[in-house]
Protein backbone atom coordinates (compact mmCIF):
# COMPACT_ATOMS: atom_id res chain seq x y z
CA UNK A 1 0.00 0.00 0.00
CA UNK A 2 1.57 3.26 -1.01
CA UNK A 3 0.42 6.44 0.60
CA UNK A 4 2.28 9.71 1.04
CA UNK A 5 0.13 11.19 3.81
CA UNK A 6 2.30 9.70 6.53
CA UNK A 7 5.63 7.92 6.52
CA UNK A 8 3.84 4.78 7.70
CA UNK A 9 1.20 4.80 4.96
CA UNK A 10 -1.72 5.36 7.31
CA UNK A 11 -2.86 8.06 9.71
CA UNK A 12 -3.19 7.69 13.52
CA UNK A 13 -6.97 8.01 13.15
CA UNK A 14 -7.06 5.22 10.58
CA UNK A 15 -5.01 3.03 12.90
CA UNK A 16 -7.44 3.82 15.75
CA UNK A 17 -10.51 2.90 13.73
CA UNK A 18 -8.96 -0.29 12.40
CA UNK A 19 -7.62 -1.39 15.81
CA UNK A 20 -11.10 -0.78 17.24
CA UNK A 21 -12.73 -2.77 14.43
CA UNK A 22 -10.50 -5.77 15.19
CA UNK A 23 -11.83 -5.98 18.75
CA UNK A 24 -15.30 -6.85 17.45
CA UNK A 25 -16.29 -10.46 16.77
CA UNK A 26 -18.63 -11.96 14.22
CA UNK A 27 -21.15 -13.03 16.88
CA UNK A 28 -21.15 -9.73 18.78
CA UNK A 29 -24.33 -7.74 19.27
CA UNK A 30 -23.00 -4.19 19.33
CA UNK A 31 -24.82 -1.02 20.42
CA UNK A 32 -23.10 1.59 18.26
CA UNK A 33 -22.35 5.12 19.36
CA UNK A 34 -22.15 7.76 16.62
CA UNK A 35 -18.80 9.04 15.31
CA UNK A 36 -15.62 7.00 15.75
CA UNK A 37 -17.41 3.87 17.08
CA UNK A 38 -19.72 3.83 14.05
CA UNK A 39 -16.79 3.77 11.60
CA UNK A 40 -15.02 0.99 13.55
CA UNK A 41 -18.15 -1.16 13.77
CA UNK A 42 -18.82 -0.91 10.06
CA UNK A 43 -15.21 -1.66 9.12
CA UNK A 44 -15.51 -4.81 11.26
CA UNK A 45 -18.71 -5.75 9.43
CA UNK A 46 -17.09 -5.16 6.04
CA UNK A 47 -13.95 -7.18 6.87
CA UNK A 48 -13.70 -10.00 9.43
CA UNK A 49 -17.15 -9.86 11.06
CA UNK A 50 -19.76 -9.94 8.27
CA UNK A 51 -22.52 -11.29 10.53
CA UNK A 52 -22.02 -8.87 13.43
CA UNK A 53 -25.28 -7.36 14.67
CA UNK A 54 -25.05 -3.56 14.74
CA UNK A 55 -27.72 -1.73 16.68
CA UNK A 56 -28.28 2.04 16.73
CA UNK A 57 -30.38 3.66 19.42
CA UNK A 58 -32.99 4.81 16.89
CA UNK A 59 -34.29 1.23 17.05
CA UNK A 60 -32.52 -0.24 14.03
CA UNK A 61 -31.40 -3.79 14.78
CA UNK A 62 -28.98 -5.67 12.53
CA UNK A 63 -28.29 -2.75 10.23
CA UNK A 64 -25.78 -2.74 7.34
CA UNK A 65 -25.42 0.78 5.95
CA UNK A 66 -23.43 1.34 2.75
CA UNK A 67 -22.29 4.75 4.04
CA UNK A 68 -21.69 5.92 7.61
CA UNK A 69 -24.82 7.59 8.99
CA UNK A 70 -24.56 11.29 9.85
CA UNK A 71 -27.04 10.75 12.67
CA UNK A 72 -28.13 7.67 14.61
CA UNK A 73 -31.47 7.81 12.80
CA UNK A 74 -30.53 8.03 9.13
CA UNK A 75 -32.93 6.35 6.73
CA UNK A 76 -30.42 3.82 5.45
CA UNK A 77 -30.06 2.31 8.91
CA UNK A 78 -33.74 1.42 8.82
CA UNK A 79 -33.75 0.29 5.18
CA UNK A 80 -30.92 -2.20 5.75
CA UNK A 81 -31.94 -3.40 9.24
CA UNK A 82 -33.33 -6.83 10.09
CA UNK A 83 -36.02 -5.03 12.07
CA UNK A 84 -36.72 -1.54 13.40
CA UNK A 85 -38.34 -1.21 16.80
CA UNK A 86 -39.71 1.73 18.78
CA UNK A 87 -37.31 3.57 21.06
CA UNK A 88 -38.88 2.38 24.36
CA UNK A 89 -38.59 -1.21 23.14
CA UNK A 90 -34.96 -0.57 22.17
CA UNK A 91 -34.04 0.52 25.66
CA UNK A 92 -36.31 -1.82 27.62
CA UNK A 93 -36.15 -5.18 25.86
CA UNK A 94 -32.88 -5.07 23.97
CA UNK A 95 -30.53 -3.01 26.15
CA UNK A 96 -31.99 -3.43 29.65
CA UNK A 97 -32.94 -7.01 28.76
CA UNK A 98 -29.24 -7.88 28.50
CA UNK A 99 -29.12 -8.61 24.77
CA UNK A 100 -26.14 -6.33 24.00
CA UNK A 101 -22.66 -7.86 24.20
CA UNK A 102 -20.69 -4.69 23.40
CA UNK A 103 -21.65 -1.07 23.99
CA UNK A 104 -19.28 1.01 21.86
CA UNK A 105 -18.91 4.61 23.04
CA UNK A 106 -16.94 7.72 22.24
CA UNK A 107 -16.13 10.37 24.83
CA UNK A 108 -15.60 14.13 25.16
CA UNK A 109 -13.85 13.66 28.51
CA UNK A 110 -12.55 10.37 29.89
CA UNK A 111 -10.75 9.47 33.11
CA UNK A 112 -8.40 6.57 33.79
CA UNK A 113 -11.21 4.40 35.15
CA UNK A 114 -13.28 4.69 31.97
CA UNK A 115 -15.83 7.15 33.33
CA UNK A 116 -17.16 9.36 30.54
CA UNK A 117 -18.39 12.96 30.44
CA UNK A 118 -20.40 14.24 27.47
CA UNK A 119 -22.65 16.56 29.51
CA UNK A 120 -20.90 19.78 30.60
CA UNK A 121 -17.50 21.39 30.91
CA UNK A 122 -17.48 23.21 34.23
CA UNK A 123 -20.23 23.19 36.85
CA UNK A 124 -23.51 21.48 35.86
CA UNK A 125 -25.71 24.41 36.92
CA UNK A 126 -23.37 27.09 35.55
CA UNK A 127 -21.60 25.33 32.70
CA UNK A 128 -18.70 26.81 30.82
CA UNK A 129 -19.75 24.66 27.85
CA UNK A 130 -23.05 22.85 27.61
CA UNK A 131 -22.40 19.60 25.66
CA UNK A 132 -25.25 17.52 24.19
CA UNK A 133 -25.53 15.18 27.19
CA UNK A 134 -25.80 11.46 27.64
CA UNK A 135 -28.51 10.33 25.23
CA UNK A 136 -28.44 6.55 25.45
CA UNK A 137 -24.97 6.31 27.00
CA UNK A 138 -25.73 6.17 30.77
CA UNK A 139 -27.61 2.89 30.35
CA UNK A 140 -25.44 1.57 27.51
CA UNK A 141 -22.53 1.88 29.97
CA UNK A 142 -24.24 -0.21 32.64
CA UNK A 143 -26.50 -2.63 30.73
CA UNK A 144 -24.15 -3.79 27.94
CA UNK A 145 -22.16 -6.86 28.92
CA UNK A 146 -18.92 -4.99 28.10
CA UNK A 147 -18.07 -1.44 27.01
CA UNK A 148 -15.44 -0.48 24.46
CA UNK A 149 -14.36 3.15 24.23
CA UNK A 150 -12.58 4.85 21.37
CA UNK A 151 -11.27 8.43 21.17
CA UNK A 152 -8.27 10.40 19.94
CA UNK A 153 -5.85 11.29 22.73
CA UNK A 154 -5.53 14.82 24.08
CA UNK A 155 -4.86 16.40 27.46
CA UNK A 156 -8.26 18.09 27.30
CA UNK A 157 -10.03 14.82 26.59
CA UNK A 158 -8.16 12.40 28.84
CA UNK A 159 -8.24 14.01 32.25
CA UNK A 160 -7.46 13.15 35.86
CA UNK A 161 -10.95 14.18 36.94
CA UNK A 162 -13.99 14.49 34.67
CA UNK A 163 -16.40 17.39 35.22
CA UNK A 164 -19.53 15.22 35.19
CA UNK A 165 -20.27 11.49 35.42
CA UNK A 166 -22.43 11.07 32.31
CA UNK A 167 -21.67 7.37 31.95
CA UNK A 168 -20.28 5.29 34.77
CA UNK A 169 -17.18 3.24 34.02
CA UNK A 170 -15.29 1.80 36.97
CA UNK A 171 -16.01 4.82 39.19
CA UNK A 172 -13.15 5.16 41.66
CA UNK A 173 -11.77 1.82 40.49
CA UNK A 174 -11.66 -1.60 42.10
CA UNK A 175 -15.09 -3.09 42.77
CA UNK A 176 -16.96 0.22 42.60
CA UNK A 177 -19.40 -1.10 39.95
CA UNK A 178 -20.27 -4.09 42.09
CA UNK A 179 -20.86 -1.87 45.10
CA UNK A 180 -23.45 0.09 43.10
CA UNK A 181 -25.24 -3.11 42.08
CA UNK A 182 -23.97 -3.00 38.49
CA UNK A 183 -23.27 -6.57 37.44
CA UNK A 184 -21.89 -5.99 33.93
CA UNK A 185 -18.15 -5.79 33.15
CA UNK A 186 -18.02 -2.11 32.17
CA UNK A 187 -15.16 -0.67 30.12
CA UNK A 188 -12.83 -3.51 29.11
CA UNK A 189 -11.05 -1.84 26.21
CA UNK A 190 -9.91 1.64 25.22
CA UNK A 191 -8.56 2.28 21.75
CA UNK A 192 -6.96 5.61 21.01
CA UNK A 193 -5.06 6.94 18.02
CA UNK A 194 -1.83 5.96 19.76
CA UNK A 195 -2.42 2.79 21.76
CA UNK A 196 -4.62 -0.03 22.99
CA UNK A 197 -5.49 0.08 26.70
CA UNK A 198 -7.05 -2.47 29.04
CA UNK A 199 -8.11 -2.07 32.67
CA UNK A 200 -5.83 -3.50 35.36
CA UNK A 201 -7.62 -6.62 36.67
CA UNK A 202 -7.67 -5.32 40.26
CA UNK A 203 -7.45 -1.50 40.25
CA UNK A 204 -9.41 -1.20 36.95
CA UNK A 205 -7.13 1.65 35.86
CA UNK A 206 -6.63 1.71 32.09
CA UNK A 207 -3.14 0.46 31.26
CA UNK A 208 -1.43 0.62 27.87
CA UNK A 209 -0.99 -2.91 26.53
CA UNK A 210 -0.05 -2.14 22.94
CA UNK A 211 1.48 0.84 21.15
CA UNK A 212 0.51 1.52 17.55
CA UNK A 213 3.39 1.31 15.02
CA UNK A 214 5.85 4.18 15.37
CA UNK A 215 4.34 5.47 18.62
CA UNK A 216 6.50 6.05 21.70
CA UNK A 217 5.61 5.86 25.40
CA UNK A 218 6.46 9.54 25.62
CA UNK A 219 3.89 10.46 22.97
CA UNK A 220 1.20 8.55 24.85
CA UNK A 221 2.09 10.35 28.09
CA UNK A 222 2.29 13.80 26.50
CA UNK A 223 -1.27 13.54 25.16
CA UNK A 224 -2.83 12.18 28.34
CA UNK A 225 -3.81 14.13 31.45
CA UNK A 226 -3.01 11.41 33.97
CA UNK A 227 0.22 9.52 34.73
CA UNK A 228 0.08 6.63 32.28
CA UNK A 229 0.69 3.06 33.37
CA UNK A 230 2.24 0.69 30.83
CA UNK A 231 2.00 -3.10 30.88
CA UNK A 232 5.23 -4.96 31.69
CA UNK A 233 5.13 -6.63 28.31
CA UNK A 234 4.17 -4.04 25.75
CA UNK A 235 2.99 -5.22 22.33
CA UNK A 236 3.03 -3.36 19.05
CA UNK A 237 -0.38 -3.11 17.37
CA UNK A 238 -0.19 -4.79 13.94
CA UNK A 239 -0.29 -2.16 11.18
CA UNK A 240 -3.48 -1.97 9.10
CA UNK A 241 -3.67 -4.53 6.32
CA UNK A 242 -4.30 -3.43 2.75
CA UNK A 243 -7.85 -4.76 2.96
CA UNK A 244 -8.57 -2.93 6.22
CA UNK A 245 -7.24 0.38 4.90
CA UNK A 246 -9.04 0.07 1.58
CA UNK A 247 -12.30 -0.84 3.32
CA UNK A 248 -12.08 2.15 5.67
CA UNK A 249 -11.08 4.63 2.96
CA UNK A 250 -13.77 3.43 0.55
CA UNK A 251 -16.35 3.69 3.31
CA UNK A 252 -15.26 7.24 4.15
CA UNK A 253 -15.23 8.27 0.47
CA UNK A 254 -18.77 6.90 -0.05
CA UNK A 255 -19.88 8.66 3.12
CA UNK A 256 -18.41 12.00 2.08
CA UNK A 257 -20.02 11.81 -1.36
CA UNK A 258 -23.40 10.87 0.09
CA UNK A 259 -23.52 13.62 2.72
CA UNK A 260 -22.35 16.36 0.39
CA UNK A 261 -24.95 15.45 -2.18
CA UNK A 262 -28.10 16.41 -0.31
CA UNK A 263 -28.51 20.01 -1.36
CA UNK A 264 -27.59 23.47 -0.15
CA UNK A 265 -29.17 26.68 0.98
CA UNK A 266 -32.60 25.40 1.94
CA UNK A 267 -34.56 26.49 4.95
CA UNK A 268 -34.31 24.31 8.01
Amino acid at each position, binding site marked *: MSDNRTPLGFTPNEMMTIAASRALKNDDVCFVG*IGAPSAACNVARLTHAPDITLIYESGTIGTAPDVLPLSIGDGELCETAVT*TVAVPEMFRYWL*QGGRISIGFLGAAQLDKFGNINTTVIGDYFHPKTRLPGGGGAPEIATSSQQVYITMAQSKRGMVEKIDFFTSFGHGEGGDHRKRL*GIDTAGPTLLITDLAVWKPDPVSKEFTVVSLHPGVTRQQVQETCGWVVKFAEVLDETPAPSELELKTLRDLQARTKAA*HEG*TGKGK*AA
Partner: protein
Amino acid sequence: MVKFLPLKQAVAENLNNGDSVAFEGFTHLIPTAAAHEAIRQGFRDLTLIRMTPDLIYDQMIGMGMAKKIVFSYVGNPGVGLLRRARDAIENGFPRPIEVEEHSHAGMANAYEAGAAGLPCAVFRGYRGAGLAEVNPNIRSVTCPFTGEVLAAVPSIRPDVSFIHAQKADRKGNVLVEGIIGIQKEAVLAAKRAVVTVEEVVDTFDDLHPNLTVLPRWTIAAISVVPGGSHPSYAHGYYARDNAAYLEWDEIAADREKFQAWMKANVIEKGADDFAARVEHLRKAA
Protein backbone atom coordinates in the same frame (compact mmCIF):
# COMPACT_ATOMS: atom_id res chain seq x y z
CA MET B 1 -63.01 13.10 17.05
CA VAL B 2 -60.27 14.02 14.64
CA LYS B 3 -60.61 17.09 12.45
CA PHE B 4 -58.74 17.83 9.24
CA LEU B 5 -57.62 21.44 9.63
CA PRO B 6 -55.23 23.90 8.04
CA LEU B 7 -52.05 23.84 10.14
CA LYS B 8 -52.54 27.40 11.37
CA GLN B 9 -55.92 26.50 12.84
CA ALA B 10 -54.78 23.10 14.19
CA VAL B 11 -51.99 24.78 16.16
CA ALA B 12 -54.18 27.68 17.34
CA GLU B 13 -56.91 25.31 18.60
CA ASN B 14 -54.59 22.96 20.47
CA LEU B 15 -51.61 24.89 21.84
CA ASN B 16 -51.78 27.51 24.60
CA ASN B 17 -49.32 29.74 26.41
CA GLY B 18 -47.84 27.88 29.37
CA ASP B 19 -48.56 24.40 27.97
CA SER B 20 -46.23 21.46 28.27
CA VAL B 21 -45.72 20.34 24.71
CA ALA B 22 -43.82 17.59 22.91
CA PHE B 23 -42.81 17.96 19.26
CA GLU B 24 -41.48 14.41 18.88
CA GLY B 25 -39.51 12.66 16.19
CA PHE B 26 -36.33 10.64 16.70
CA THR B 27 -34.19 12.10 13.88
CA HIS B 28 -36.89 10.92 11.44
CA LEU B 29 -40.29 12.64 10.83
CA ILE B 30 -39.50 15.71 12.90
CA PRO B 31 -42.58 18.00 12.97
CA THR B 32 -40.77 21.11 11.75
CA ALA B 33 -43.79 22.68 10.02
CA ALA B 34 -45.86 22.46 13.22
CA ALA B 35 -43.02 23.95 15.26
CA HIS B 36 -42.63 26.82 12.79
CA GLU B 37 -46.37 27.51 12.96
CA ALA B 38 -46.11 27.64 16.77
CA ILE B 39 -43.24 30.12 16.39
CA ARG B 40 -45.29 32.31 14.04
CA GLN B 41 -48.16 32.36 16.52
CA GLY B 42 -45.71 33.45 19.23
CA PHE B 43 -46.59 31.20 22.15
CA ARG B 44 -44.84 31.93 25.47
CA ASP B 45 -43.78 30.11 28.63
CA LEU B 46 -43.86 26.66 27.08
CA THR B 47 -42.38 23.58 28.70
CA LEU B 48 -40.71 21.90 25.75
CA ILE B 49 -40.39 18.13 26.05
CA ARG B 50 -38.36 16.02 23.66
CA MET B 51 -35.77 13.25 23.77
CA THR B 52 -33.62 14.90 21.11
CA PRO B 53 -34.36 18.63 20.97
CA ASP B 54 -32.71 19.54 17.70
CA LEU B 55 -33.11 22.47 15.34
CA ILE B 56 -36.78 23.17 16.10
CA TYR B 57 -36.23 23.51 19.85
CA ASP B 58 -33.06 25.53 19.22
CA GLN B 59 -35.30 27.84 17.18
CA MET B 60 -38.09 28.01 19.77
CA ILE B 61 -35.62 28.58 22.62
CA GLY B 62 -33.81 31.23 20.57
CA MET B 63 -37.15 32.99 20.03
CA GLY B 64 -37.72 33.09 23.80
CA MET B 65 -40.75 30.78 23.83
CA ALA B 66 -39.55 28.25 26.40
CA LYS B 67 -39.48 28.56 30.17
CA LYS B 68 -38.34 24.96 30.62
CA ILE B 69 -36.86 22.17 28.57
CA VAL B 70 -37.10 18.44 29.35
CA PHE B 71 -34.68 16.37 27.26
CA SER B 72 -32.12 13.59 27.01
CA TYR B 73 -29.80 14.80 24.21
CA VAL B 74 -29.54 18.48 23.40
CA GLY B 75 -27.44 18.25 20.23
CA ASN B 76 -27.58 18.90 16.50
CA PRO B 77 -27.75 15.26 15.35
CA GLY B 78 -24.53 14.24 13.64
CA VAL B 79 -23.18 17.79 13.70
CA GLY B 80 -22.55 18.91 17.27
CA LEU B 81 -23.99 21.42 19.70
CA LEU B 82 -27.18 23.48 19.70
CA ARG B 83 -26.01 27.04 19.96
CA ARG B 84 -29.26 28.85 20.83
CA ALA B 85 -29.99 26.30 23.56
CA ARG B 86 -26.44 26.76 24.83
CA ASP B 87 -26.86 30.53 24.88
CA ALA B 88 -30.01 30.11 26.99
CA ILE B 89 -28.48 27.60 29.41
CA GLU B 90 -25.04 29.23 29.70
CA ASN B 91 -26.00 32.93 29.48
CA GLY B 92 -29.74 33.15 30.11
CA PHE B 93 -30.25 34.60 26.62
CA PRO B 94 -32.86 35.55 25.44
CA ARG B 95 -34.29 34.39 28.77
CA PRO B 96 -33.18 32.00 31.51
CA ILE B 97 -34.42 28.48 30.95
CA GLU B 98 -35.10 25.71 33.42
CA VAL B 99 -33.52 22.38 32.55
CA GLU B 100 -34.75 18.87 33.37
CA GLU B 101 -32.31 16.37 31.95
CA HIS B 102 -32.70 12.60 31.58
CA SER B 103 -31.12 9.74 29.68
CA HIS B 104 -32.84 8.32 26.59
CA ALA B 105 -33.85 5.27 28.62
CA GLY B 106 -35.38 7.57 31.23
CA MET B 107 -37.37 9.61 28.69
CA ALA B 108 -38.49 6.57 26.67
CA ASN B 109 -39.71 4.84 29.80
CA ALA B 110 -41.44 8.02 30.99
CA TYR B 111 -43.33 8.43 27.70
CA GLU B 112 -44.33 4.78 27.77
CA ALA B 113 -45.60 5.18 31.34
CA GLY B 114 -47.55 8.25 30.22
CA ALA B 115 -49.17 6.28 27.41
CA ALA B 116 -49.90 3.47 29.87
CA GLY B 117 -51.62 5.85 32.28
CA LEU B 118 -49.11 5.23 35.04
CA PRO B 119 -47.80 7.94 37.41
CA CYS B 120 -44.18 6.88 37.02
CA ALA B 121 -41.81 4.63 35.11
CA VAL B 122 -39.60 2.02 36.74
CA PHE B 123 -36.46 0.70 35.07
CA ARG B 124 -32.83 -0.28 35.64
CA GLY B 125 -30.98 2.93 34.97
CA TYR B 126 -28.94 5.93 36.10
CA ARG B 127 -26.59 3.71 38.12
CA GLY B 128 -23.52 5.77 38.94
CA ALA B 129 -24.80 8.53 36.65
CA GLY B 130 -24.33 12.18 37.65
CA LEU B 131 -27.82 13.05 36.40
CA ALA B 132 -29.35 11.31 39.40
CA GLU B 133 -27.60 13.90 41.61
CA VAL B 134 -28.71 17.01 39.69
CA ASN B 135 -32.27 16.07 38.67
CA PRO B 136 -34.64 15.72 41.66
CA ASN B 137 -37.11 13.87 39.41
CA ILE B 138 -34.75 10.90 39.22
CA ARG B 139 -35.52 8.75 42.24
CA SER B 140 -35.58 5.08 43.12
CA VAL B 141 -37.96 2.34 44.21
CA THR B 142 -37.22 -1.05 45.69
CA CYS B 143 -38.69 -4.07 43.98
CA PRO B 144 -41.10 -5.67 46.50
CA PHE B 145 -40.25 -9.13 45.18
CA THR B 146 -36.47 -9.14 44.80
CA GLY B 147 -35.28 -6.11 46.77
CA GLU B 148 -33.51 -4.72 43.69
CA VAL B 149 -33.27 -0.93 43.74
CA LEU B 150 -34.57 0.49 40.46
CA ALA B 151 -34.75 3.98 38.97
CA ALA B 152 -38.08 5.80 38.95
CA VAL B 153 -39.03 8.91 36.96
CA PRO B 154 -42.40 10.63 36.67
CA SER B 155 -44.37 9.72 33.56
CA ILE B 156 -44.50 12.25 30.74
CA ARG B 157 -48.02 13.51 30.01
CA PRO B 158 -47.84 16.54 27.75
CA ASP B 159 -50.78 18.89 27.34
CA VAL B 160 -50.26 18.45 23.62
CA SER B 161 -48.01 16.36 21.37
CA PHE B 162 -47.16 17.15 17.76
CA ILE B 163 -45.84 14.51 15.37
CA HIS B 164 -45.33 14.23 11.63
CA ALA B 165 -46.36 11.01 9.85
CA GLN B 166 -46.39 9.59 6.34
CA LYS B 167 -50.10 9.42 5.69
CA ALA B 168 -53.64 9.52 6.94
CA ASP B 169 -56.65 7.80 5.43
CA ARG B 170 -59.82 9.79 4.75
CA LYS B 171 -61.26 8.83 8.11
CA GLY B 172 -58.23 10.26 9.90
CA ASN B 173 -56.33 7.13 10.93
CA VAL B 174 -52.58 7.79 10.77
CA LEU B 175 -49.72 5.56 9.57
CA VAL B 176 -46.18 5.98 10.91
CA GLU B 177 -43.42 3.77 9.49
CA GLY B 178 -39.65 3.49 9.33
CA ILE B 179 -37.84 4.70 12.44
CA ILE B 180 -40.94 5.14 14.58
CA GLY B 181 -39.07 6.53 17.56
CA ILE B 182 -41.34 7.60 20.37
CA GLN B 183 -44.21 9.00 18.27
CA LYS B 184 -46.90 6.50 19.25
CA GLU B 185 -46.13 6.93 22.95
CA ALA B 186 -46.01 10.73 22.62
CA VAL B 187 -49.50 10.74 21.07
CA LEU B 188 -51.03 8.32 23.56
CA ALA B 189 -49.41 10.06 26.56
CA ALA B 190 -50.75 13.51 25.62
CA LYS B 191 -54.07 15.15 26.42
CA ARG B 192 -54.28 16.27 22.77
CA ALA B 193 -52.35 15.21 19.69
CA VAL B 194 -51.86 17.04 16.41
CA VAL B 195 -50.43 15.21 13.40
CA THR B 196 -49.06 16.64 10.18
CA VAL B 197 -48.95 14.18 7.28
CA GLU B 198 -47.37 13.99 3.85
CA GLU B 199 -50.62 12.96 2.17
CA VAL B 200 -54.13 11.58 2.58
CA VAL B 201 -55.10 8.30 0.91
CA ASP B 202 -58.56 6.80 0.46
CA THR B 203 -58.13 3.76 2.69
CA PHE B 204 -55.58 1.76 4.65
CA ASP B 205 -57.09 -1.53 3.43
CA ASP B 206 -53.87 -2.77 1.83
CA LEU B 207 -51.55 -2.16 4.81
CA HIS B 208 -49.60 -4.90 6.56
CA PRO B 209 -51.57 -5.71 9.74
CA ASN B 210 -48.72 -4.97 12.13
CA LEU B 211 -47.81 -1.50 10.97
CA THR B 212 -48.00 1.38 13.41
CA VAL B 213 -51.40 2.96 12.92
CA LEU B 214 -52.81 5.54 15.30
CA PRO B 215 -56.61 5.24 15.24
CA ARG B 216 -58.41 8.49 14.41
CA TRP B 217 -59.97 8.77 17.87
CA THR B 218 -56.50 9.18 19.44
CA ILE B 219 -55.86 12.37 17.47
CA ALA B 220 -57.37 15.86 17.80
CA ALA B 221 -56.35 17.33 14.45
CA ILE B 222 -54.58 16.38 11.22
CA SER B 223 -53.00 18.86 8.81
CA VAL B 224 -51.69 17.90 5.40
CA VAL B 225 -48.22 19.46 5.01
CA PRO B 226 -46.09 17.81 2.32
CA GLY B 227 -42.41 18.24 3.23
CA GLY B 228 -43.44 19.14 6.78
CA SER B 229 -40.54 17.37 8.43
CA HIS B 230 -37.77 19.05 6.43
CA PRO B 231 -34.79 19.12 7.07
CA SER B 232 -35.30 15.68 8.64
CA TYR B 233 -36.76 13.05 6.35
CA ALA B 234 -39.93 11.11 5.70
CA HIS B 235 -39.20 7.45 4.97
CA GLY B 236 -40.54 6.65 1.50
CA TYR B 237 -40.97 10.33 0.56
CA TYR B 238 -37.73 12.30 0.80
CA ALA B 239 -34.21 12.06 2.23
CA ARG B 240 -32.61 13.91 5.11
CA ASP B 241 -31.16 17.32 4.19
CA ASN B 242 -27.78 16.84 5.85
CA ALA B 243 -26.50 20.12 4.42
CA ALA B 244 -29.21 22.05 6.27
CA TYR B 245 -28.07 20.55 9.58
CA LEU B 246 -24.49 21.55 8.85
CA GLU B 247 -25.58 25.08 7.90
CA TRP B 248 -27.65 25.44 11.06
CA ASP B 249 -24.45 25.25 13.08
CA GLU B 250 -23.33 28.55 11.52
CA ILE B 251 -26.72 30.25 11.55
CA ALA B 252 -27.34 29.52 15.23
CA ALA B 253 -23.84 30.55 16.27
CA ASP B 254 -24.70 34.24 15.94
CA ARG B 255 -27.67 35.97 17.61
CA GLU B 256 -28.30 38.44 14.77
CA LYS B 257 -27.79 35.94 12.01
CA PHE B 258 -30.25 33.68 13.79
CA GLN B 259 -32.90 36.40 14.00
CA ALA B 260 -32.49 37.33 10.34
CA TRP B 261 -32.77 33.69 9.31
CA MET B 262 -35.88 33.15 11.42
CA LYS B 263 -37.54 36.23 9.93
CA ALA B 264 -36.83 35.19 6.36
CA ASN B 265 -37.49 31.46 6.69
CA VAL B 266 -40.10 31.09 9.41
CA ILE B 267 -41.90 34.33 10.31
CA GLU B 268 -42.44 35.44 6.72
CA LYS B 269 -43.16 31.94 5.43
CA GLY B 270 -45.97 29.42 5.87
CA ALA B 271 -46.78 25.73 5.88
CA ASP B 272 -47.14 25.73 2.09
CA ASP B 273 -43.46 26.53 1.66
CA PHE B 274 -42.29 23.13 2.91
CA ALA B 275 -43.10 21.13 -0.23
CA ALA B 276 -40.56 23.05 -2.32
CA ARG B 277 -37.84 22.54 0.30
CA VAL B 278 -37.86 18.75 -0.18
CA GLU B 279 -38.27 18.70 -3.96
CA HIS B 280 -34.54 18.07 -4.56
CA LEU B 281 -34.51 15.36 -1.89
CA ARG B 282 -37.34 13.24 -3.26
CA LYS B 283 -35.37 11.14 -5.72
CA ALA B 284 -32.89 10.23 -3.03
CA ALA B 285 -35.56 8.89 -0.65
